[in-house]
């Protein structure tokens, strides 16, 4: 009996220890409480090479904004976590953010955006992702998802338009190399449809780049057989760089055209000479191109003892994406009512055009959550991205 009582006592002790840990406070109250914004980044997973600078840009923007008056006098409380590109982990953090009263979320990749799509719609929290799949820009399907940059499909359309223009009416073969995932396949069908709708004389074939592959020699041989003179790449910089090097070594003689996730400085650094002459659709201009036009960003960098040479375009991408969200928050506060998810959504849709030094005009509306409708084509010249054309619309 004594033993029994001892066991019972110990169990009750354990039980009380398991309790505790408060529930998150309800969010969105008026007054001087900070506005809670949740953010998930990939800082150590497969896309961390671009995830780390993007996250820095987002966080530095929030720091800078908070130091210069916040939004409508209120501070932004950015709760961020590293989800390592793992969907279940992203859902876990999502639960935490909702419990903490987040009124808006900064997402990252296609995987987490897809995983959380249904929940943000149910919970009514605007979600701004770095995944630019076209399906996320349609308010009828996904009323709470917002794309700041040009969708992958629009990027593909611009790429095909540019290629058609360059070939002056002659037939041209295009090989589309894409990542083995929804991110990779997102623009493929839209590209094919665009060719048909516009009556372009372009041969279009897609090749998957398997995730664990260390070279793409086999696929490039097939592209060569197809007679491709352009290789459009919907992938991140590292695999694109390997593709560029393989293509150069094999003497394929085709020109690479990178969509936004491989059109960056990392691609040039990794591919070296093989990157020279490659084209890219860059919705966010490289920072050195906009030197002198970004006073806030440059001041913030200087305060940290850094300069524009130490960052790449993903930093500016993160910075300005967060700035668009901040504008939305400020707009929501102007109405004087409580800041909630639906209020922020309303504000983003009605706030009108936003200009930034590194992009074309960004504008959301009730009919479309795709922020940008045009982008410039760039080319790698002497190891850097230089603009080749004016802003093209698909």
């Amino acid at each position: 009996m004594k033993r029994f009582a001892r066991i019972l006592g110990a169990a009750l002790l354990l039980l009380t220890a398991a309790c505790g840990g408060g529930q998150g406070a309800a969010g969105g109250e008026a007054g001087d409480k900070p506005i809670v914004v949740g953010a998930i980044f990939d800082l150590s997973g497969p896309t961390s090479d671009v995830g780390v600078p993007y996250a820095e840009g987002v966080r530095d923007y929030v720091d800078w904004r908070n130091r210069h008056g916040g939004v409508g006098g209120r501070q932004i409380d950015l709760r961020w976590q590293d989800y390592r590109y793992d969907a279940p982990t992203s859902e876990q953090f999502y639960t935490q953010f909702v419990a903490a009263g987040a009124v808006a979320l900064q997402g990252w990749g296609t995987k987490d955006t897809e995983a959380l799509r249904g929940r943000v719609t149910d919970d009514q929290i605007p979600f701004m992702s770095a995944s630019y799949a076209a399906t996320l820009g349609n308010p009828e399907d996904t009323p709470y998802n917002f794309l700041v940059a040009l969708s992958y499909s629009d990027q593909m359309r611009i790429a095909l338009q540019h290629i058609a223009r360059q070939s002056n009416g002659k037939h041209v073969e295009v090989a589309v190399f894409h990542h083995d995932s929804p991110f990779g396949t997102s623009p493929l069908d839209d590209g094919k449809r665009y060719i048909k709708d516009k009556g372009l004389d372009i041969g279009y074939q897609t090749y998957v780049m398997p995730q664990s592959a260390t070279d793409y020699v086999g696929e490039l041989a097939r592209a060569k057989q197809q007679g491709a003179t352009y290789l459009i790449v919907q992938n991140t910089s590292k695999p694109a760089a390997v593709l560029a090097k393989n293509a150069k070594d094999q003497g394929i003689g085709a020109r690479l055209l990178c969509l936004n996730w491989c059109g960056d400085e990392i691609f040039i650094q990794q591919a070296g000479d093989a990157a020279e002459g490659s084209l890219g659709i860059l919705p966010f201009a490289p920072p050195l191109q906009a030197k002198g036009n970004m006073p806030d960003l440059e001041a913030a960098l200087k305060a940290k003892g850094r300069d524009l040479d130490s960052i790449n375009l993903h930093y500016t991408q993160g910075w300005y994406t967060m700035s668009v969200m901040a504008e939305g928050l400020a707009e929501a506060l102007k109405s004087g009512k409580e800041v909630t998810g639906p209020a922020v959504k309303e504000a983003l849709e009605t706030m009108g055009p936003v200009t930034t030094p590194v992009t074309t005009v960004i504008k959301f509306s009730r009919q479309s959550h795709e922020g940008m409708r045009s982008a410039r084509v760039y080319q790698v010249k002497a190891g850097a991205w230089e603009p080749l054309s004016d802003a093209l619309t698909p």
Partner: protein
Amino acid sequence: MGTATGLYHRSYAEVLALRQTRAEYARLALLGIALAVAPFVLPPVWLRVACQAGIAAIGAIGLNILTGYTGQISLGQGGFLAVGAYTSAIVVTRMDLPTPVGIVAGIALAALVGAFFGLPALRLKGLYLAIATLASQEIVLWVVRNWSAVTGGASSLLVPAPRVLGFPLRSDFAWYWVIVACGAAAALAATNLFRTGIGRAFVAIRDQDIAAQAIGVDIVRYKVLAFAVSSGFVGLAGALTAHYTRTVQWEQFTLDVSVLYVAMIIVGGLGSVAGSIYGAVFMLVLPAGIQQLGTALRDDFPIITEKLPALQHAAFGLVIMLFLIFEPRGLARCWQRVKDYARLWPFRY
């Protein structure tokens, strides 16, 4: 009938009972109370971890049946989880059948696929079987990713929340009860399995399969059955995951997940149903705990943020190694030692 000097049974019913002493019944009652109280007191983050641990426990029980009780090493659980999840999701979304039908379909198909991929076990053992199951995992995953017509390929499948009596089952609180009920049923089923002849045949295969064959245990039948039963449990876990998380993506079922399950049963204790549950809870609470700790310390030690995932991963690897080096029979054995100490005190044995 447990007394201070030992166990004395006066009827067959008592011999076959699941619990035999008062102390064991008391512990079971305490566990029941703890489980009933938990969803009311746990913070949302931990409630979610509890739900995930419950689902993982079902899968771990299944794997333990195969590896702990039958001695067949398997690195292919990710594939069977995927089969269970996708089948259930497709039955519910494409064929518009109610969720329980989907779950049963998930279990059935996972068992069939498991039996098929268990065929190499008839010719292979130990390391070679592990590699064969690893290959089967990669193949199943490849099929799932490329059979777009059926599985949606690489994009995720969205599953609507199941409805119980008209109410959508969406919150962690509601799911907790469903998961605990399924978990209890699974644990009971597994424990009962090893009170039957089939269970004893499994154990015989693990201990001395050549001798077992010599005394008449049909190795072919029981090995395939072991794979089928184990994959059925794992399929149930997969189906529950599909409906609980409401998205099904192939990345949820990679080799890392298979390795995690093997880690669960090793840390928990091979050949023990309770061990599977301990292991599942431990391996899910550990990363969550480190995560919370890291977030709390983040402002004081900013270096932690970049290093946190690496620390979680290091903890995972370290835990497995330390358990195997110092207590290869896992948490179940640790708990058994605690109980023995209390029971035999002041004597040592």
